[in-house]
């Protein structure tokens, strides 16, 4: 019996987290918890049984999102990946979660520290794969002599700029799906050494 109750409790918690991700993605991170309770079809009080504070729910949802993205990135990546296929994979994962991710980068500065750290954890995973894909090119000087973090941040800046202004770049549909090829091509041209570009 106790086991069954434990399982039910875990399932309800999971349902609330999934509902929170959906509601945050549609209406932002300051949406009242009652909207999340409605989406999850649980009583408002039930949320606070599982999450003592609003921030607990927010942090837990963001961590589950971060874990999911990290899992996808890890499972798709290969030690032999070159930078072009890594960028393609990164955009592919973001397209799958585009609405939520867009919300996350839009509101990240207003989030509590622990929730922001869940975002940095995603970036850490991306950057590890980025580093592995670029290391060889950097050692063999196929890439311009720029500090690694600036190369990484240049890519993130480009992708985030298009996401944050998606209403201007792609009023309908996924901005990343529409601009994926030009973003990747432009970025590769920027970081490659002159003679590599000519090849």
């Amino acid at each position, binding site marked *: 019996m106790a086991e069954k109750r434990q399982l039910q409790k875990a399932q309800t918690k999971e349902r609330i987290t999934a509902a929170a991700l959906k509601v945050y993605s549609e209406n932002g991170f300051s949406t009242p918890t009652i909207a999340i309770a409605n989406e999850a079809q649980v009583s408002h009080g039930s949320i606070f049984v599982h999450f003592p504070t609003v921030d607990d729910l927010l942090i837990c949802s963001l*961590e589950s999102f971060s874990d999911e993205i990290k899992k996808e990135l*890890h499972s798709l990546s290969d*030690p032999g990946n070159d930078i072009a296929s890594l960028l393609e994979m990164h955009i592919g994962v973001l397209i799958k979660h585009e609405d939520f991710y867009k919300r996350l980068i839009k509101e990240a500065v207003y989030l509590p*520290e*622990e929730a922001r*750290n*869940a975002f*940095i*954890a995603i*970036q*850490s995973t991306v*950057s*590890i794969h*980025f*580093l592995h894909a670029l290391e060889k090119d950097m050692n063999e000087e196929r890439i311009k002599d720029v*500090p*690694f*973090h*600036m190369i*990484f*941040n240049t890519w993130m800046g480009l992708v985030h700029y298009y996401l944050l202004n998606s209403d201007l770049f792609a009023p309908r549909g996924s901005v990343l799906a529409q601009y994926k090829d030009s973003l990747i091509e432009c970025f590769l041209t920027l970081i490659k050494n002159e003679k590599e570009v000519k090849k």
Partner: protein
Amino acid sequence: MKNCIACGMPMKNASDFAMCDESKDYCVYCARPDGTMQSFDEKKESLTNFIIKTQGLAAEAAESAALSMMRKLPAWENCFD
């Protein structure tokens, strides 16, 4: 697939494990040169430096993020209250 208990990295290939030993629970990045696992302070420092090197964050923000990541890992369970 095993995840490193000290940094969370999934360990797919033998080369991901400390000393290429697949019976180990921690990864090559969490091992000292002699193969033993890094201490809490060593890991905190190396993770912080890694975040600074790869993402360019300020030291303070990088350390806070490193501690957040470590908080969830089995190796450091007893290091947080």
